[in-house]
């Protein structure tokens, strides 16, 4: 990928760090204010099984991952179905049974919002673009395709439409 003109990226080049760089990396390690999505992200990062995220979506909607993928990850899905999932998540939040159901609700909530953006160009939440982008990017970094691709497409839509 790189030739000699590109910046050094081997770890051996990063042993002599300036104070400014060290501070920047330490700051990156801080948790920052706790956000609603954090418990889901923490769980996803700890989950060794690839299907964990899909399992949460299945639990929240009562549909299989195979049924959900065309609805959430392609333009073939109906926006009404996506909106229905979002409403379902709000109901799950309201009922709050346990952590697992809360994680499921969070997963389908952000998936529905991202799907509406990625496949229908609609923003169906009042959250600020900045908050939403950060949450969706974090999700994209922790799940596998096709969900990751759908989240990435959502952020691209968010950026292109401001």
């Amino acid at each position, binding site marked *: *990928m*790189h030739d000699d003109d590109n*910046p050094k*990226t*081997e*770890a051996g080049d*990063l*042993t002599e*760090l300036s*104070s400014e*760089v*060290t*501070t*920047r*990396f*330490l*700051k*990156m*390690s*801080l*948790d920052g204010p706790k956000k609603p999505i954090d418990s889901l992200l923490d769980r996803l*990062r700890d989950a060794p099984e690839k299907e964990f995220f899909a399992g949460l979506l299945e639990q929240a909607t009562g549909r299989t991952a195979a049924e959900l993928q065309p609805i959430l990850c392609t333009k073939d899905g109906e926006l009404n179905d996506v909106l229905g999932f979002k409403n379902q998540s709000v109901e799950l939040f309201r009922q709050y049974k346990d952590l697992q159901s809360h994680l499921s609700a969070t997963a389908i909530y952000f998936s529905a919002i991202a799907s509406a953006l990625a496949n229908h160009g609609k923003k169906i939440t009042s959250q600020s673009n900045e908050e939403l982008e950060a949450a969706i*990017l*974090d999700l*994209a*970094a*922790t799940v596998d395709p096709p969900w*990751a691709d759908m*989240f*990435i497409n959502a*952020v*691209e839509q968010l*950026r292109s439409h401001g």
Partner: protein
Amino acid sequence: MSDPSNASNETGNDSDSDGSEPKQHFPETQVTWIRERLGEGASGQSQIKEHVMRLYYRPLQYYFLGLKGLRNLGEPEDIVGGYFADRLSRDDFFDKWRLSGIKLRRWLMNGLHFFLKERIRAENRNRVRGPDVEQLQIAIDTPDPDEGFDREFAHSIVAEALQQVYKDCLTRGLKDHWDIFVRHHYHGESYKDFSHEYNIQPVRASVMSRTVRDRFRTAIRNLLAQDGVKPGEIESEIKTLMESMAN
């Protein structure tokens, strides 16, 4: 202050009077890591020593440099090298630290104090003109050495976390993820300026970078836990290290 080299130390050894297992002070992740290594015999001990050398060798040299009036004891690398050679080879050195309840860096600083005391006494016995033990105490009591140590420890821990994540990325086939992370967060390049080199959109580049960032955060937190920082104190510990960089 306890001497980590002594068989019975006063600080933190909470061995119950009925002879039951000593209480544990450290978070489970750290205890597990140390326990596992100690349980592996010579190879585990060797891993712990390598870990200590990588993270604490330079900070201790800076710490020694900050101890005023003691420079004629020797060069910092010789002093710390001699200290490690003497103390880290003792079988119970880390066992006793594990029971001490103090952070590893503090344990190592305390150990260095006692090592220096021994050096001073030996030199005085040999009639070499040098500092006396009281001078050592005065030097220890000044705040400067601690600041220098924290600053160097911050550099060490970030460099070590980067090394670990780099190796992890290579093992998992995430070299491009690593490169993108470094180009953005270290070299300050914008994703949109270089993502085309990887045939990806800027958003995907930022997602790949985030994956590495998450691993880096975990690495920093694990290293602090291994130093003996409790889970609830890691956030404030990182802030303290950041403050040390401003001094």
